[in-house]
């Protein structure tokens, strides 16, 4: 076993240890054991950083990959299924080591931040325990080398997300939100499981590498439609977990959880798991499946961006922006911009975590005020938060010199390339939506920055009743009455909340990823995460890729070890060399080629759009040339459409929830009337029969018994009379009998 594998297993188990210690012993430990959580995560991050250093910095090989697995459960030859052997394993490649470092770093920062943010909460210790199990599950997803264990950790992530969203479970809204998140995720997970089963039924293995190898060797016996279906079903898992249209509804509600949790789970890591998973299965996705994925991503990005522009809650704006950015990532995977999409995943994780932690700092400083309408003028009071928040905002909006610019631009360039390669037409909708969203993002983030940090302080404008409600956690303040509204001492947060913001803001700058602020492809990230060659090419679904030598070297290795007849990879004549890689699948090659060609086009358009969005925000909110409220009135239907989140909740309420209520009522009716009717009918029948039986028993059987007794009794009574006890009676009877005998005897004698 490679030493890095051993280290990664230690990294995986450390947060679990933190969970076990804290969930059982947090009340017995000083400070409720938060130092254990922070310490363990610190260790895990240190080990992950070492893995990152060894893999990315020292090895610096795009094809680096080590794996180890063991047979977990061997059920032998299961009837009807075939050999069923479930393996567990760990794989470390470039993507894994980057994700490992990213997740442990953000988790560590959130742990540190939470020591300030959650201070004084009555479930302080349990909170850190939940963070531990979340980190464990997330690391499990990252390290898994097969579909089965990834599914297990997938569900564990869902569970920890459920626990943390409903952390303030005394609030109904939090309890509802956690249920909503869990159910929405469940819908996706069902699809994912079905997808896993389709692949398993074909290959009898869960391992990614085995599945790739088998597909590349053309062992998929079903039609191509089934392969597309398997890809899309697996993608459904991502739709649920990464909050893609139409299962995005849970993510904004998940903001009911503590803000550091929103940063860790619902912005940076867990929601990225879906994108990570699609990246893992990227090579088996057919072009049809990829088209669907691209359109779903584009729809999500566009829809969430339009909703974000009208929301008032600072966390909700960020939540919809998260949905929108996840849409970008999925769009990126759909159009084949694999590296760009994962690049965006990582950059987004850092700047969105920074934004959420920043918003947490603001909410903390504002005494649990989340509505941007009542903020303003905070930049002087919270300079650290202001600077870091602004850097992260610029990264999110996608201005040059930030990490977000590079990754978003790479995705958009890929989208243009995709549209050109697919022959234009409807496919141009995807980059168009992408660019439009870039503008919307710039607009709503500009709006947010302005509303929160600039202008006049509007704390005193808040209606009083809401104010008290918002302060239910701070009863002591509420007792002072209304006069003190503006007098809340808004101050910069403590160092343990500031430090994570600074680190995350630094990680949102371009220099971390690439020396050229305009081109992420020159950076180490995109070089280390090359787009893998598909194993289900466009021309020939299964065999084509392999025969033309496009299989990545490590897959070819697997093929050899699995004794599949593999021709050695040969440089195909029509192969397109890009960054040292061969994309002999013509479609993939064309997309990558066109994407590279579109690089500067994308930069120009996206910078224009971003500046346009920012100008719009300035026009609306800074210079007040156009009054946003008047505009909202002028286009009221559109405004309401956006404010009410495209009415998705209402639509689901009207269809699925009402539908299931109606169904439940129908079933309830069926249950009360038919099922119960049958049961009651049977019962009545049994009663009737029992009644008849009872009568028979009472009258016939008992009658017979009683009659016998009666007869015996009567006979006895009669015969008792004869038993006088007097000797003379007996003598008389003796004589009578004797006489009778004689009479009888002599009568016979005579006749």
């Amino acid at each position, binding site marked *: 076993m490679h030493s890095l594998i051993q280290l990664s297993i230690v990294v995986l188990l450390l947060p679990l240890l933190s969970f076990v210690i804290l969930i059982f012993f947090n009340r017995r430990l000083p400070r409720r054991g938060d130092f254990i959580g922070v310490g363990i995560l610190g260790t895990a991050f240190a080990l992950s950083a070492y893995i990152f250093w060894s893999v990315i910095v020292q090895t610096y090989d795009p094809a680096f990959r080590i794996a180890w697995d063991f047979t977990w459960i061997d059920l032998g030859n299961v009837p009807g299924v075939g050999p069923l052997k479930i393996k567990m394993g760990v794989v470390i490649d470039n993507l894994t080591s980057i994700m490992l470092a990213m997740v442990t770093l953000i988790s560590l920062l959130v742990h540190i931040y939470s020591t300030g943010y959650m201070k004084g909460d009555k479930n302080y210790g349990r909170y850190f325990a939940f963070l531990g199990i979340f980190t464990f599950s997330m690391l499990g997803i990252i390290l898994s080398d097969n579909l089965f264990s990834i599914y297990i950790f997938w569900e564990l992530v869902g569970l920890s997300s459920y626990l943390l969203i409903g952390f303030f479970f005394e609030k109904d809204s939090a309890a509802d939100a956690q249920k909503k998140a869990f159910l929405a995720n469940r819908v996706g997970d069902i699809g994912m499981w079905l997808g896993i089963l389709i692949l398993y039924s074909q290959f009898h293995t869960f391992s990614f590498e085995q599945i790739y190898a088998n597909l590349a060797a053309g062992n998929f016996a079903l039609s191509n439609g089934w392969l597309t279906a398997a890809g899309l079903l697996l993608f459904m898992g991502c739709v649920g977990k990464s909050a893609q249209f139409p299962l995005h509804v849970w993510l904004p509600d998940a903001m009911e959880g503590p803000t550091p949790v929103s940063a860790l789970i619902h912005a940076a890591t867990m929601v990225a798991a879906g994108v990570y998973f699609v990246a893992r299965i990227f090579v088996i996705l057919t072009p049809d499946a990829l088209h669907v994925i691209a359109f779903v991503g584009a729809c999500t990005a566009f829809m969430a961006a339009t909703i974000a522009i009208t929301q008032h809650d600072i966390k909700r704006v960020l939540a919809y922006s998260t949905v929108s950015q996840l849409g970008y990532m999925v769009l990126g995977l759909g159009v084949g911009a694999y590296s760009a999409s994962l690049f965006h995943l990582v950059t987004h994780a850092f700047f969105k975590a920074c934004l959420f932690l920043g918003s947490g700092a603001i909410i903390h400083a504002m005494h649990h005020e989340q509505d941007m309408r009542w903020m303003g003028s905070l930049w002087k009071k919270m300079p650290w938060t202001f600077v870091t928040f602004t850097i992260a905002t610029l990264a999110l909006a996608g201005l040059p010199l930030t990490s977000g610019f590079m990754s978003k631009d790479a995705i958009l360039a890929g989208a243009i390339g995709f549209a050109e390669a697919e022959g234009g037409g409807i496919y141009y909708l995807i980059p168009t939506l992408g660019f439009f969203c870039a503008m919307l993002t710039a607009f709503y983030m500009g709006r947010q920055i302005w509303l929160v940090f600039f202008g006049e302080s509007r704390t005193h404008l808040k209606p009083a009743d809401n104010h008290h409600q918002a302060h239910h956690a701070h009863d002591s303040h509420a007792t002072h009455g209304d006069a003190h509204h503006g007098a809340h001492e808004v101050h910069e947060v403590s160092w343990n909340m500031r430090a994570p913001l600074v680190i995350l803001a630094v990680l949102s700058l371009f220099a971390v990823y690439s020396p050229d602020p305009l081109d992420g492809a020159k950076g180490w990230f995109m070089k280390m995460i090359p787009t893998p060659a598909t194993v289900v090419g466009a021309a020939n679904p299964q065999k084509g890729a392999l025969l033309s030598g496009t299989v990545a070297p490590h897959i070819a290795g697997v093929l050899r070890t699995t004794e599949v007849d593999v021709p050695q990879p040969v440089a195909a004549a029509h192969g397109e060399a890009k960054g040292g890689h061969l994309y002999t699948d013509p479609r993939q090659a064309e997309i990558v080629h066109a994407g590279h060609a579109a690089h500067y086009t994308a930069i120009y358009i996206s910078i224009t759009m971003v500046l346009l969005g920012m100008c719009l925000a300035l026009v609306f909110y800074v210079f007040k040339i156009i009054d946003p409220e008047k505009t909202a009135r002028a286009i009221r239907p559109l405004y309401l459409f956006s404010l009410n989140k495209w009415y998705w909740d209402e639509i689901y309420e009207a269809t699925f929830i009402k539908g299931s209520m109606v169904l439940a009522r129908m079933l309830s009716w069926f249950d009360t009337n038919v099922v119960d009717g049958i049961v009651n009918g049977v019962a009545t029948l049994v009663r009737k029969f029992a009644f008849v039986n009872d009568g028979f028993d009472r009258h016939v059987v008992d009658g017979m018994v009683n009659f016998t007794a009666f007869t015996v009794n009567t006979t006895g009574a009669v015969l008792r009379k004869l*038993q*006088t*006890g*007097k*000797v*003379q009676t007996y*003598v*008389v009877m003796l*004589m009578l009998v004797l006489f009778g005998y004689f009479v009888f005897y002599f009568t016979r004698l005579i006749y």
Partner: protein
Amino acid sequence: MEQLTTIGLNHYLTLSAILLGFGLFAVMTRKNAIVVLMGVELILNAANINFLAFSKYNGGMEGVMFALFVIVIAAAEAAIALAIVINIFKIFKSVDVSRIDSMKE
């Protein structure tokens, strides 16, 4: 006519039957235990007459022997019966057989 003038077997048997009848009547109807015993003696003697009559007309001595036995046994029986009667009197303060019915229960 000859049968009325000459004493034959039938006369003995008839006498015996009459005696038996008297005896039975006494046993069945009398209330005094002593009288009942006397009735029993009559019955025994009726049997004795039968034995003797048959013995005479049959020509053997078996009947006589039986009659002798019966007389002896009757004597013994009378002794025992009288003893029983005395005991009964001690218990019931009466020798009325109709009142001695404790066997009923």
